[in-house]
């Protein structure tokens, strides 16, 4: 395997591998071009199975020539069959939950950051940075600390306190910007021009985004080298959604797995649904929105990969739906009660859309559905406040009996 070049997704112009991310000819995004012509599928499978317990087992499909140093190696998170969730949804489909909160900083962002920081080191950067809605901030701060790099993390100043605390602890330069994520992103795009820093999701974005493919690879491997029939994934910028598609496609094309692309269903919050709107209206661009939702990790009003997410949902016969803040809260509880997995608001969005698909009769009997849980519930505790009540009693048997008289029989 060799990593060939950076290639424009729009006009196919090619660029040398470096810290660059958009096409000078047409402004299209750059993607990694690989040469897999000498790859033997059986040998690649053996290398994977003998590989490390994390994303670097897929090093053949990442933009490196070997396994980089990565002390916090993320990946190989649990894929759980959620029969009780399927039952509550009233479907005979097989529902699987890919719990990617089980990563070093408790979100899927550890995957993309591990790849970006390894690349930043390879390219000689000593400072890394990012524009984040929270999870990325946690991951960049932690992985930079692990690698001994300086870091600058830019977030909207009104982020959930849990995400700010879980970033600052790593000793990063945490910068709260008075504005929404799109303001933060614009600022970082400008800073990337004037500072010699590796912004993981700006000038290193082509490499960074590749990390999300490992979620597709793991899914296939954990299903016994089979493709799911359908995936449900949250959409913020659309990068995860489209890279899941690319991951499946690479393995289909190279003969590591048989079959076709799963049906792709995307999930957004109603308060920030530019991609769902573009899908519904049949547009090939997204009209930007000013976000207003409790799902702050998905609150990107101007999604970079929105057009490609719309295209992939259409091409696979899927769709992109949006759910309200109330539906998000209910879905967080539904997942917790039926699987023991406590997800953040983004996972509530995903499960909310899964529930919508079930209600519409879209999930056929026997169909194998994988829903991606991308973050941890402890990061967005406010979303669960007031969704249940606690029994408060005196430390006496009488007090307990009085409280539970109706429910407990001896």
């Amino acid at each position, binding site marked *: 395997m060799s990593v060939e070049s950076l290639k424009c997704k729009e006009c196919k112009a090619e660029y040398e591998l470096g810290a*660059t991310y*958009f096409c*000078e000819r*047409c*402004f*299209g995004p750059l993607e990694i071009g690989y040469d897999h012509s000498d790859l033997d599928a059986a040998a690649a499978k053996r290398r994977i199975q003998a590989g490390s317990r994390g994303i670097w087992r897929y090093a053949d499909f990442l933009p490196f020539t070997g396994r980089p140093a990565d002390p916090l190696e993320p990946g190989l998170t649990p894929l759980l069959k959620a029969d009780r969730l399927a039952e509550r949804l009233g479907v005979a489909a097989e529902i699987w939950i890919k719990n990617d909160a089980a990563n070093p900083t408790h979100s899927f962002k550890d995957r993309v950051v591990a790849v970006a920081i390894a690349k930043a080191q390879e390219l000689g950067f000593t400072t890394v940075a990012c524009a984040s809605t929270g999870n990325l901030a946690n991951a960049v701060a932690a992985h930079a600390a692990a690698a001994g790099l300086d870091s600058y993390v830019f977030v909207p100043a009104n982020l959930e306190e849990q995400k700010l605390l879980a970033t600052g602890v790593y000793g990063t330069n945490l910068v709260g910007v008075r504005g929404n994520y799109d303001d933060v992103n614009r600022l970082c795009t400008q800073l990337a021009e004037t500072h010699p820093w590796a912004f993981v999701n700006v000038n290193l974005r082509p490499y960074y985004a590749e990390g999300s493919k490992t979620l597709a690879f793991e899914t296939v491997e954990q299903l016994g080298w089979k493709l799911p029939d359908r995936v449900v994934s949250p959409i913020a910028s659309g990068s995860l959604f489209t890279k899941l598609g690319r991951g499946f496609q690479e393995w289909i094309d190279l003969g590591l797995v048989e079959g076709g692309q799963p049906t792709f269903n995307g999930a957004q919050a109603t308060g920030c649904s530019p991609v769902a709107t573009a899908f519904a209206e049949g547009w090939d661009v997204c009209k930007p929105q000013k976000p207003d939702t409790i799902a702050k990790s998905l609150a990107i009003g101007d999604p970079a990969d929105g057009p490609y997410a719309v295209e992939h949902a259409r091409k696979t016969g899927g769709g992109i739906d949006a759910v309200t803040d109330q539906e998000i809260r209910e879905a967080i509880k539904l997942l917790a009660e039926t699987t023991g997995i406590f997800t953040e608001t983004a996972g509530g969005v995903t499960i909310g859309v899964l529930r919508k698909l079930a209600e519409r009769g879209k999930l056929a009997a026997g169909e194998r559905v994988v829903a991606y849980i991308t973050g941890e519930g402890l990061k967005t505790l406010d979303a669960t406040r007031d969704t249940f009540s606690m029994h408060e009693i005196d430390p006496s048997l009488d007090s307990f009996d009085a409280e539970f008289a109706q429910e407990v029989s001896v």
Partner: protein
Amino acid sequence: MSVTVKIPTQLRAATGGESEVQVEGTNVGEALDAVFAAYGDLKERITQDGTLRRFVNVYVSGEDIRFQQGLETAINEGDEVTILPAVAGG
């Protein structure tokens, strides 16, 4: 109105290395046309069939013109028009 149009680093080969250009115009479209009149190579990179390419973002003093009147967005004396790639973030 005289405004400053900021050019992204990667396109500065087309402006002879200039990072910003001073032009006249009453709205964003006119200001960009004035830039294209001075630096013809930029036009094809930024626009297609008379509209902005889909991965180009333009801001007037920090506000995305798609939240305003697009290329018709009025500009005032001293405004800064910034052209940036739209493929960052997430």
